[in-house]
């Protein structure tokens, strides 16, 4: 059984008691434990089930590379799936659940899959479920989805808070082991602004467990002194629990800081995402140990050798009384020594190499531990726990020479440098055949925007695996980073690290090397996804030669650990199977993040009220007080209508339309874009921006204009007013203000940079109120201050003045067909004017109206709306707006495009009015008019579509606008518009102007 030892555990506080639950069972651990160490201490070996075969699994590693011990942390809204038990710090009240099992972790029905494993080989799903085609979507996929998947996503809203932080640094060092700490010292003494990110809760990394001395003192003493020295440097920032997540272009990198995961508190950000611009990045990320591929290497109790000694040394936890060590290198002997020192039994060290005579193996021999060279594990016996291992010859086929009873197996297949960050921005790797690892190729380092090297890599991450070599490499690489940062090299001395010498490893990819098919089918490469040696070999036989294809076919390396444990072993198997060298096969691509980061940290502060900006007009609160029903328009909220008690929205809209047509309506039009265009060339510029002439507009007058894209499509519209000789004010649509401003600036800055024109976006400087209806003039006259008579302010005139003592600019324009004024006033006075208009308007039955009434009234008048009648494929000519397209102008944006044959084709659908044959019926928005016959895909032909459709309270009938083939020539034709519920609505083609064709009402 696994248990807590009586002594040891450098990270835990034995005086503390921390209560937690796992699958509802209560356990106790110590502060300083990880969830994994605490579970082991409580003899909870079984921690999860694998993805495909639901095999019982326990922890295999002690860090972020963990592939098995994934749990769901917390519950309900705070549930987090797929948390690695090895990186989860224990806290009081922690509650964890294992995943991927049913009905329980101990008795899992899905484990039957393992019995039929030979019917579920690589690519099984692809091969089996491909026919019949429609079955995939409707039958197979939903079924597979249910049986697959790891932790479930939480169903409730995440109650936690997150934040971002923008930092700028000369050098970011990823990793706070001895290499990272020394590099920070060098860079810090060079005066660089340095951030050191360490993903765990303690400084020093592996060396604290692996031992040795630095500058003649223990690693621990050296780490403490170095951290203390770094803390006293103002230019160095040290962050624990902060993982380097990714490195991107231009020195941008992300750090993922877990602020309260280890000690949850309310209303504190849970994670902080550091968004750093780094002049230089230095990876001091260490290395990750590789498993060995022998049969049964996934049985609970088989762990990485380094992890097993981590549990003993850091947490005082033993995985079992008797541990067999199996290795191809000297480093794993450290585990035998650590176990021995903890008073545990090591029945044998099984070394695949034919000879070992290094310092560490000899020390192990001296301790009286049996060392078997040239041997291998034929097979691990045991289901939910290791019971014994079968000893065999590494050179053989796996005949068992001897069965060694044990509770745990410590395996080591060598180490792989963590080169992820180096690779994120294109740093290349080179295969070191002697050390059997990919190491960074410094001749092909990651580069920045000017081709300069902007990343370095040091220590074990750079392939320097011993303490002494790692430290001198850290020193050298830090100096290189300082040079690249163009700072003066400091006099910092290179620290001398001493640890036992290590003999070279022997690459071992299959154990034993002649293992038969039956054994190979039990050798796990990717533990989480259940990819075995036999699967990769099958893929190779089926023709998969590229490592990227093999990965996707077998799902090797596609689990949440992203192949940290499996990639090198897998590609070695593949290279052997296809007879190509390992460097020829190459690695899959390393992509950020290094380990999964929370979605919340990516969103940062953007949640709840500040999920996105909500733009408010100066009258926003009034609308709210008057029960406006809101409609989003871009990021604005505009009142759709103002329902009164007992009224439906439709009733409110109809009331607002009738009242505006008969009495007086007020509309908050503040969201309209207002762009001031000024300069000696402003007229010339606007003639190019708009399809019609703006340069000949007289001061004091307004003109409706259209803007097109370069491709001729209608992009925006609005009323332009000429303010003075060289100034025009361009109104845009509400959603188009920023876009059109940017459009104008782009042309001025990139194409017509010699034009003397300035544009200022005054959209928010003014509140704008439309005063509409037969009594519009009466109410303005009552407010007093300026002459708004027909003579002084005719249709399409504008004038500056005052109303009720408030400075205003009045535009006599109409989007409703009624007598109408649009009044602009400085935004700070907007609400005051709005309220005064309501006060004075009482006598005339004033009512505010919303966007839907506005839409209906403009449709009754046959006015188009950008976004309804246009969709990016419509040109003004389609809408019968030829009158607004200048024929005199030499050029305007879109002119040439509109001359293309496709644009001048008489078969283009054109705008018409549509009147439902049954007046009570209203056409469906977007509905198509059917035509005879079918197209090449067997779909019924169409001859037009609805662009806007309403019930007109004014005319008491359904009205619509639509684009119809040869529409304007087919007045009176009746078209069929099927609905989605199987009815057909008939509508007659009519003139799009339904109301007051002669404009008598607006012209009074």
């Amino acid at each position, binding site marked *: 059984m696994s248990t807590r030892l009586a002594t040891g555990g450098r990270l835990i506080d034995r005086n503390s008691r921390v209560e937690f639950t796992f699958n509802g069972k209560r356990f106790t651990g110590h502060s300083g434990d990880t969830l994994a160490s605490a579970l082991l201490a409580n003899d909870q070996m079984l921690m999860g089930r694998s993805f495909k075969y639901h095999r019982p699994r326990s922890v295999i590693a002690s860090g972020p590379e963990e592939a098995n011990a994934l749990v769901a942390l917390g519950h309900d809204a705070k549930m987090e799936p797929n948390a690695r038990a090895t990186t989860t710090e224990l806290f009081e009240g922690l509650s964890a659940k294992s995943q991927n099992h049913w009905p329980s972790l101990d008795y899992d029905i899905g484990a039957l899959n393992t019995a039929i494993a030979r019917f579920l080989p690589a690519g099984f799903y692809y091969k089996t479920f491909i026919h019949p085609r429609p079955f995939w979507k409707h039958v197979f996929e939903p079924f597979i989805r249910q049986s697959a998947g790891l932790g479930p996503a939480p169903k409730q809203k995440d109650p936690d808070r997150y934040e971002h932080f*923008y*930092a700028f640094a000369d050098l970011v060092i990823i990793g706070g082991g001895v290499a990272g700490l020394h590099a920070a010292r060098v860079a810090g003494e060079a005066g660089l602004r340095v951030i050191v990110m360490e993903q765990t809760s303690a400084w020093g990394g592996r060396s604290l467990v692996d031992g040795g001395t630095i500058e003649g003192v223990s690693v621990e003493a050296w780490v403490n002194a170095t951290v203390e020295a770094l803390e006293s440097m103002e230019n160095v920032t040290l962050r624990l629990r902060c993982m380097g997540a990714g490195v991107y272009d231009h020195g941008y990198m992300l750090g993922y800081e877990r602020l309260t995961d280890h000690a949850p508190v309310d209303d504190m950000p849970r994670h902080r995402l550091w968004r750093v611009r780094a002049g230089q990045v230095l990876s001091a990320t260490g290395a990750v140990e590789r498993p060995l591929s022998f049969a049964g290497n996934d049985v609970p109790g088989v762990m990485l050798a380094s992890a097993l000694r981590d549990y003993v040394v850091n947490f005082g936890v033993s995985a079992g009384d008797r541990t067999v060590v199996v290795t191809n290198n000297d480093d794993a002997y450290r585990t035998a020594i650590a176990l021995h020192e903890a008073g545990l039994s090591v029945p044998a060290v099984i070394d695949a190499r034919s000879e070992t005579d290094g310092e560490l193996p000899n020390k192990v021999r001296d301790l009286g531990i049996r060392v078997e060279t040239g041997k291998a594990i034929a097979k691990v016996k045991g289901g939910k726990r290791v019971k014994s291992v079968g000893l065999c010859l590494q050179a053989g086929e796996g005949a068992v020479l001897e069965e060694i009873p044990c509770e745990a197996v410590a395996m080591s297949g060598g180490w792989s440098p963590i080169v992820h960050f180096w690779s994120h921005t294109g740093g290349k790797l080179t295969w070191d055949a002697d050390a059997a690892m990919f190491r960074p190729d410094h001749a092909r380092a990651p580069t920045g925007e000017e081709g300069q090297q902007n990343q370095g890599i040091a220590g074990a991450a750079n392939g320097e695996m011993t303490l002494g070599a790692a430290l001198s490499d850290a020193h050298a690489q830090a100096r290189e980073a300082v040079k690249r940062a163009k700072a003066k090299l400091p006099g910092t001395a290179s620290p001398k690290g001493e640890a036992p010498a290590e003999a070279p490893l022997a690459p071992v990819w299959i154990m034993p090397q002649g293992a038969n098919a039956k054994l190979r089918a039990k050798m796990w490469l990717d533990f989480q996804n259940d990819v075995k040696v036999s699967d990769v070999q099958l893929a190779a036989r089926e023709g998969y030669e590229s490592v990227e294809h093999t990965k996707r076919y077998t799902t090797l390396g596609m689990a949440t650990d992203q192949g940290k444990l499996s990639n090198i072993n897998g590609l070695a198997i593949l290279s052997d199977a296809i007879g190509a060298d390992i460097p020829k096969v190459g690695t899959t691509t390393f992509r950020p993040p290094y380990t999964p980061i929370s979605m919340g940290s990516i969103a940062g*502060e953007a949640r709840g009220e500040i999920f996105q*900006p909500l733009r408010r007009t100066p009258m926003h609160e009034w609308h709210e007080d008057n029960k406006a029903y809101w409609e989003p328009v871009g990021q604005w909220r505009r009142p759709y209508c103002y329902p009164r008690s007992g009224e439906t929205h439709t009733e409110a809209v109809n009331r607002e339309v009738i009242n505006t047509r008969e009495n007086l309506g007020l509309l908050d039009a503040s969201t309209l874009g207002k762009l001031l265009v000024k300069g000696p060339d402003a007229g010339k510029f606007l003639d190019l921006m708009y399809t019609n002439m703006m340069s000949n507009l007289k001061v004091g007058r307004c003109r409706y204009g259209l803007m097109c894209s370069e491709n001729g499509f209608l992009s925006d519209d609005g009323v332009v007013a000429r303010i003075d000789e060289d100034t025009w004010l361009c109104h845009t649509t509400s959603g188009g203000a920023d876009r059109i401003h940017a459009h104008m600036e782009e042309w001025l800055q990139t194409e017509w940079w010699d034009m003397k024109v300035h544009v200022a976006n005054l959209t928010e400087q003014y509140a704008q109120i439309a005063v509409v209806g037969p009594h519009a003039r009466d109410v303005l006259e009552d407010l007093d201050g300026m002459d708004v008579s027909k003579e002084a302010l005719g249709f399409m005139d504008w004038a500056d003045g005052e109303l009720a003592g408030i400075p205003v600019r009045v535009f006599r324009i109409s989007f409703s067909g009624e007598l109408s004024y649009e009044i602009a006033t400085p935004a700070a006075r907007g609400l005051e004017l709005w309220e005064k208009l309501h006060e004075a308007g009482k006598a005339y039955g004033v009512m505010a109206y919303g966007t839907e009434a506005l839409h209906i009234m403009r449709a009754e008048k046959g006015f188009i709306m950008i976004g309804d009648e246009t969709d990016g494929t419509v040109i003004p000519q389609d809408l019968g707006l030829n009158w607004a397209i200048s024929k005199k102008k030499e050029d305007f944006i879109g002119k040439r495009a509109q001359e293309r044959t496709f644009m001048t084709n008489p078969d283009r659908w054109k705008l018409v009015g549509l009147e439902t044959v049954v007046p009570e019926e209203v056409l469906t928005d977007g509905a198509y008019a059917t035509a005879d016959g079918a197209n090449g895909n067997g779909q019924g032909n169409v001859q037009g579509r609805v662009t806007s459709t309403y019930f007109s309270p004014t005319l008491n009938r359904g009205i619509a606008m639509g684009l119809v083939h040869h529409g304007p020539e087919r007045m009176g034709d009746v078209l069929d518009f099927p609905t989605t519920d199987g009815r057909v609505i008939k509508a007659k083609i009519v003139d799009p102007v339904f109301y007051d064709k002669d404009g008598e009402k607006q012209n009074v």
Partner: protein
Amino acid sequence: MSDVMAPLATVTALPAQGMITIRGNLKDAGFIAAVKSASGLDVPAQRQIVTQKELALAWMSPDELLLLCGYEDAPALTNAMTEAFGDQFAMAVVVSDARAVFDLEGPKVRDVLGKLAPVDMAPGSFGHGEIRRTRLAQVAAAFWLTCDDSARLVCFRSVAQYAEDLLKTSAKPGTEVGYF
């Protein structure tokens, strides 16, 4: 404990501030002279803000300045500026009502801004006399330091509530970053 519970900075919405957008060639002697004659201020260098009594002049882009003044003074100052420009290709326009202004006060004001704006807020990189026209989370904003532990921030009027909520969230007690 009282320190722990205090926000990193207090956020106060200020009353309307006079603002004038000025556009022209910032390197042109005539433009510089006109700005000086109308406002008494020198054209600031890139990313700088110059202050004199009630007025401040901020660099906004290679062809844009922002003049800050009393709210009531903006129209008259704009007219004076327009007059001073004469025939020059330059523009002055009142934008006071288009903006909202906030004061941030507290020792951790750099943290509050550093969580929302992609700006190097380190004392050595962002000091007095400097202005940043940048973004605050999802909206445009500009800010400058008024003293060691206070800053002033300008954003568009329509998103004033969003900006205030953002700043207050960023300033919540106990969330200092400890980077500066």
